[in-house]
């Protein structure tokens, strides 16, 4: 590179210059990354932020030469005086894992289930350091496990991936990535598949690494809270372009690009309490005669499995009144979705009472139970999976009307159009198929279907967690809007406390199938009584670097004491 007159800064360990990535699909090329440039300095954590399709992951994979065959990459990626894009596959392979290593999103999928984690770490070590003996590799593995704060590292070596928690698996992955003292660690959404409290644990480990190892970290994420927690500098990407690059505090205090501002605004925050109360059409005291829309008493749900029964829900009691939004919050495995599914008749009712819209499940006749379904709408988490891919949007939205209201022909068409209109989708879109819509649009269709019969109760199971933040915000606004207009009660199942604060009136917190706390929103979020709730509230990262730093200090101080 004789033409390159740039003085190479010794502090820059990785420099991406004018990177272009195109994918050629069926003869047409789609640009994924458009002249992106950024540099990673020694010892820093650089966050690459963007929504899905922004090119953040693609640009990182391009650095490693891990893109599929149909990708065309141009530009320069400089590392250690070489341009990685000009390297032969063999040279690149030697570099990967040794100089630059990656941590992927889903740790349980990235570990091989038939080998112990110790064997897998040793394998990585011996692959890159042929001279290393078995005993040396083992000793190094223990050292690595200590580095990522795995408790009792010697014993952990003999564990299989399924014997470790998700957070521990991710720490093993980080240990593996650090095995050969890489100069650069690329973490691609390292905590997205994890629960908040576990995410916290992994973020703490990553944070602590900065003092312990040489590696600079490229953190790819969509979560502004994670950015605030970990990053030193931030690169914001949109539609394949870098829209802003700034130190973290500067970015959060004074975002320059309009898109960055929009992204920060879209992060769900608490609505002022009075605004929310004004929104609720019939708060609490509408007379004792009014029956609750959903009443769950001492509910127990057990799933039979090969070895005994698994108790998913254990003695939960809660109620949702007319016009109220109750948030059911918990981490994965807490039984929150099971309660929703049980109310929908999709999970076995082992013991206890569930009364939906005046009908008691398991005691009233199947006919009455089926009748009651008309008065319940449901929105699931993944809008791609919850719409039949072979039917048009209008078919899906109109089906409950066709079956339960007996609407046909023109009346059906008109009502379907009105419903699509009410979720702010153009009426002409009825003829489209789900795969032709974006995630947010699909979720709008699912909402239109759920409200088609003007339900008394809407059960929303993580309706926004599969969506990008900016889309999530609009869908939440829409849901709040429609709820206000139609006045239905809503059981809102989520793991995300920030979303709860934006929408809900009351909160019920679940852990391990049991209800740990229930109360008004302000009470639960601002003054949580239960230690688990406190931990949950503290673990949810907020998009404010100062607040995150303060929390970490508190937490670490607490751990010392």
């Amino acid at each position, binding site marked *: 590179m004789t033409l390159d007159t740039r003085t190479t800064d010794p502090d820059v360990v990785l420099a991406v210059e004018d990177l272009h990535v195109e994918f050629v699909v069926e003869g047409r090329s789609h640009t994924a990354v458009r002249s992106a440039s950024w540099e990673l300095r020694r010892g820093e954590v650089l966050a690459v932020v963007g929504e899905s399709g922004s090119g953040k992951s693609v640009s990182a994979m391009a650095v490693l030469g891990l893109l599929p065959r149909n990708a065309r990459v141009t530009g320069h990626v400089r590392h250690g005086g070489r341009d990685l894009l000009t390297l032969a596959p063999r040279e690149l392979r030697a570099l990967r894992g040794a100089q630059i290593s990656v941590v992927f999103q889903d740790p349980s999928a990235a570990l091989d289930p038939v080998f112990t984690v110790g064997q897998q770490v040793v394998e990585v070590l011996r692959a890159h350091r042929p001279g290393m003996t078995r005993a040396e590799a083992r000793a190094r593995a223990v050292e690595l496990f200590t580095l990522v704060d795995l408790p009792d590292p010697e014993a952990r070596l003999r564990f299989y991936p399924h014997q470790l928690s998700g957070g521990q698996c991710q720490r093993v992955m980080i240990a593996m990535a650090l095995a050969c003292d890489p100069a650069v660690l690329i973490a691609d959404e390292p905590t997205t598949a994890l629960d908040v409290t576990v995410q916290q644990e992994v973020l703490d480990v990553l944070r602590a690494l900065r003092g312990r190892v040489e590696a600079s970290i490229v953190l790819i994420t969509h979560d502004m809270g994670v950015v605030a927690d970990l990053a030193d500098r931030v690169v914001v990407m949109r539609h394949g372009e870098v829209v802003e690059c700034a130190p973290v505090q500067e970015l959060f205090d004074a975002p320059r690009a309009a898109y960055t501002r929009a992204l920060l605004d879209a992060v769900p925050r608490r609505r002022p309490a009075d605004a929310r109360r004004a929104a609720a059409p019939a708060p609490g005291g509408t007379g004792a005669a009014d029956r609750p829309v959903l009443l769950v008493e001492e509910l127990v749900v057990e799933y039979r499995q090969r070895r005994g029964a698994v108790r998913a829900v254990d003695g939960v009691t809660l109620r949702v009144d007319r016009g109220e939004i109750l948030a059911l919050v918990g981490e994965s495995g807490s039984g929150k979705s099971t309660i929703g599914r049980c109310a929908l008749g999709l999970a076995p009712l082992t013991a206890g009472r569930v009364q939906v819209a005046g009908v008691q499940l398991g005691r009233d006749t199947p006919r009455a139970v089926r009748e009651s379904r008309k008065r319940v709408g449901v929105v699931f988490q993944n809008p791609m999976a*919850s719409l039949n*891919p072979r039917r048009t949007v209008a078919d899906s939205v109109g089906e409950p009307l066709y079956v339960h209201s007996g609407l046909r022909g023109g009346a059906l068409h008109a009502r379907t159009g009105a419903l699509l209109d009410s979720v702010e989708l153009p009426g002409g879109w009825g003829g489209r198929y789900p795969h032709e819509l974006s995630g947010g649009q699909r979720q709008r269709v699912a909402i239109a279907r759920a409200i088609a019969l003007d339900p008394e109760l809407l059960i929303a199971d993580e309706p926004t967690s599969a969506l*990008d933040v900016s889309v999530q915000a609009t869908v939440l606004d829409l849901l709040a809007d429609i709820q206000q207009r139609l006045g239905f009660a809503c059981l809102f199942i989520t793991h995300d406390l920030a979303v709860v604060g934006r929408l809900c009136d009351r909160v019920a917190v679940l852990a391990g199938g049991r209800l740990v706390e229930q109360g008004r929103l302000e009470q639960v979020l601002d003054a949580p009584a239960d230690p688990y709730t406190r931990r949950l509230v503290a673990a949810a990262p907020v998009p404010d670097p100062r607040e995150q730093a303060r929390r970490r200090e508190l937490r670490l101080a607490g751990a010392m004491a």
Partner: protein
Amino acid sequence: MTGVAVTADLDPTDAGALPRRGVWPGLRRRALFWVPVAGIVVLTVLTVAPGWVAGWFGNGDPRVCDLSSSADGPVAGHPFGFDRQGCDVYANVVHGTRASLTVGLTCTLIAFALAVLLGTLAGLRGGLADRVVSRVTDVFLGFPFLLGAIVVLNSFGERSVLSVSLALALFVWPAMARLVRSSVRSVRDAEFVQAARAMGFGTWRVVSRHVLPNAIGPVLAIATITVGQVIVAESTLTFLGLGLRSPAISWGLQLSNAQAQLQNAPHMLLFPSVFLAVTVFCLITLGDVLRDALDPRQR
């Protein structure tokens, strides 16, 4: 909410309605649809009016044979040559279409219907129904296919197109039923099926509108291939003296007669095989094209 974020969800540039795309407009434009359709039209004509087509070269009767021209090659008036008995191969191939195609289609249809019924039952219900159906298919799959068909056909006594189809269907459905079962199971727990059940739709509606349309694809693909396999199986049975018997005419019979003469009279094997291959090709291609056309994601 600021403007940028709102438009991230609703792209104003494609807010218009798309032209309505049904199954037919999609099919009409594809050459790969018309090729098998043409083939199947020809086969249908052969099935309905074999005498007319066979007579094109002046020797339309498959049973008029002249031993003196046994196994002779193509000559004028006999474009495909003669078989060992000195009968016209062209007339025989044309007249054989009906029996072969009928056995292939009847057998596949019976097996398909049985497989969808039992496979769906097993896949959807699980539990006892699943165990019973699975064990029954195990038993049938454990049988050597030909041995089983031989036993069944021997006990039938009578050899008609229907009895041969039934005997073959008995051993074809289990593999298909397993496929239906696993396919249905994978769709059963999909969220759109759960959503349909949560909305209180009846079982029939859930199965016919939501489960089967999404589960049937792989089974249809296998079914089209099965038609060809059945035609070949029928010829094997015939070769063993257990399928259709002369004076019945089928491709299977011709193939089995021709095998012994492959070296000195390859034309006897060539022409029935070409017809068989073209038939199977048409059915498989049509099946493929239809599957793509019925799936909105492929359009």
